[in-house]
């Protein structure tokens, strides 16, 4: 099953809402850019019914190159986290029956 991409999202705006192709493509681009900008400012993004994007500060820790075994320090960093909403988790579970793994 192929992935959903920005092109598919733009196609949906064209088909379902009648935005023209250029507007649809631009809108999809801007949608993700505004979320990136908020996270870049350190602001969590709460999209009710879908999920929340948050930020976490990670302390530095010793790491290792798994291939060579060489020790390399991992610096302190800020990372994005995502928590799916209950609604999304429920929708995923309701549809999960058909693709249960062994």
């Amino acid at each position, binding site marked *: *099953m*192929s*992935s*959903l*991409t*920005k092109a*598919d*999202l733009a196609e*949906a*705006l064209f088909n*379902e*809402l009648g*935005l023209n192709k250029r*507007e649809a493509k*631009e*809108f*999809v681009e*801007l*949608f*993700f850019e*505004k*979320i*990136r900008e*908020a*996270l*870049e400012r350190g*602001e*969590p*993004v*709460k*999209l*009710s*019914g*879908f*999920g929340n*994007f948050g*930020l976490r500060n990670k302390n530095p820790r010793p790491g290792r190159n798994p291939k060579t075994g060489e020790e390399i320090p991992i610096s302190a*960093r*800020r*990372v*994005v*986290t*995502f928590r*799916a909403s209950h*609604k*999304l*988790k429920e*929708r*995923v*579970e*309701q*549809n*999960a029956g058909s*693709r*249960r*793994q062994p």
Partner: protein
Amino acid sequence: MTKSELIQLLAAKQPQLDYRDVELAVKELLEQLSTALASGKRIEVRGFGSFSLHYRPPRVGRNPKTGDTVQVPDKHVPHFKPGKELRERVDD
């Protein structure tokens, strides 16, 4: 930032669209993302990140109040992996 604040920001950037259309477009995008995940489809947005489902095998859990053991069935949970651009911009 909430969904309605996102809608306001997008409406300000796209003055040729009615506010109502911006609202519908944001809802449509979130609906497309949710439907894809619900049907087990991956989502890949270059520069933003990818969404996929992670499988959680069944396990024996405990009711923290009573201490009783309970069977927790297997499940799929949505997972987000930030893309390179987002990782770099958030961690400047």
